[in-house]
């Protein structure tokens, strides 16, 4: 699983959680909240979809790691690799 793959996984989830957002130009190094209208309910959903679809647990203390696509990739890619993906 490359970091690009991880970013795509996160984008796919956001597309389902917030279908009314335009995801065509999301900048990977900018906080998601600064370019999309996502509130705490939406972030909770991203975490829960990661668990549901990919068996990845994100403890509450680590939520800040999901701030941007880049930080998501840094944080989640090793977790995917640990699951053999």
């Amino acid at each position, binding site marked *: 699983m490359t970091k690009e793959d991880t970013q795509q996984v996160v984008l796919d989830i956001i597309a389902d959680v917030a279908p009314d957002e335009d995801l065509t130009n999301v900048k990977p190094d900018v906080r998601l909240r600064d370019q999309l209208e996502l509130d705490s309910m939406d972030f909770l959903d991203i975490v829960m979809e990661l668990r*549901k679809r990919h068996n990845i647990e994100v403890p509450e203390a680590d939520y800040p790691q999901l701030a941007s696509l880049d930080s998501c990739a840094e944080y989640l890619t090793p977790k995917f690799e640990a699951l053999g993906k």
Partner: protein
Amino acid sequence: MNSAHHYDVVIIGAGMSGLAAGIRLAHFGKKVCIFERHNAVGGLNSFYSQQGRKFDVGLHALTNFVRPGVKGTPLTKLLRQLRISRDEFQLAEQKRSRVAFGPNGETSLTFTNDFAVFESEVAREFPGQIDGFRALVATVRSYDDVSLDAKPVSARHVVRRHISDLLLEDMLFCPVMYYGSAEEQDMEFGQFVIMFKALFLEGFARPFDGVRVILRTLVDKYRAAGGERRMKCGVRRVITREGRATAVELDDGAVVTTDQVISSIGAPETERLWSQPAGHQASPVGALSFVETISILQRQPRELGWGDDTIVFFNDRERFDYVAATDEVDPRSGVICFPNNFNYENGQELAEGVFRCTCLANHAQWQNLPEASYRQRKAEWFQVIQASARRFLPAVSDQTLQESLIATDMFTPRTVEKFTGHLGGAIYGSPRKHRQGTTSLPNVYLCGTDQGFLGIIGAMLSGISMANYHILRG
């Protein structure tokens, strides 16, 4: 006990809030079952058929309507959380609504889904109050109304800081109270903010086929997510062990074990399902109930000469009294609704005209009537209510109305209690809300009316919030 009937979560009641909670829980893999005593879903916002004609109960209009692209409002949050596309609700916007006060509606404020219209109406009728009104709106906009632990404040008190004209004050409170207040004469400011935003800053819409479009969408989502549902099977008792709920006993005597329970049936109604600990302060039963008359007409209301109002909130006295009626009905104030007057897609029109009038009523008075006089009183009040409401509409002769009349129906507090199980026929539940949704048992939670988010969208958000907060986040 049969382990095949063990659930992660049991939900009591298949109304809007119970269904929404169920969708969230089933979507995230919980084994969940909704038990509903009635044979139809919807609870306080349901529908019934009579002589092949479908009647909506509850829903005059869906409040909280915002157009596509407006984000961060209750409607948008709800659609995201339930993974519903807004097209599925088929929402058509209102034409225009009014608040009309005075013996014949001499003072009138029109509003639409464009807030600027309402603001200019306030400026026209109450030029000296417009600065205060704008300050009030700014306070409303900046208030955190979804906070689960806000301190209760009197809405009258906050509004009076900005508005000094009692007539304007009452004209603002009338729609807000009629569409959601369980409290007489005043309401908690957070509740006022939720309703003010829902009615004035957001707006009204309706699916062409009424409330059943929304209910069908919810039921389909719930089923697709793997949720189970049992109809005509209420929960009559919550079984506890060592201070926790372990199971529920159904109306047919069967026992179903569960880890957690969400109850949408109201706080006083839920508290009766198990014996409360010593010193527990029982939630009061709401005092406010309503009657509604429904007339089905051959022609569109517009063709009869009634214009294109969607909703009219009326009051004929100097002050607006939002209290339980002392007589069976209080016809001094009320709400008129014409479901025909929404801008349905492609200029579609409902096949028949519908004229609905809602007034405050007294539950005990209706409850105590013997069957024969109950019917007679209904018929008598029907005429009184309609006559009262028609004072606030353009004049249409009795003969014209009579010639167009196809069918009528009417519900009373007795009907509401019978079909929804809400004690006292209290549509907006107990005056004491439980924002956190907690009960005297650590694994039983409330959602719906008595959790305190109001309106249809509020009800669904309540189910979502409580499922998230107590179960999914845990």
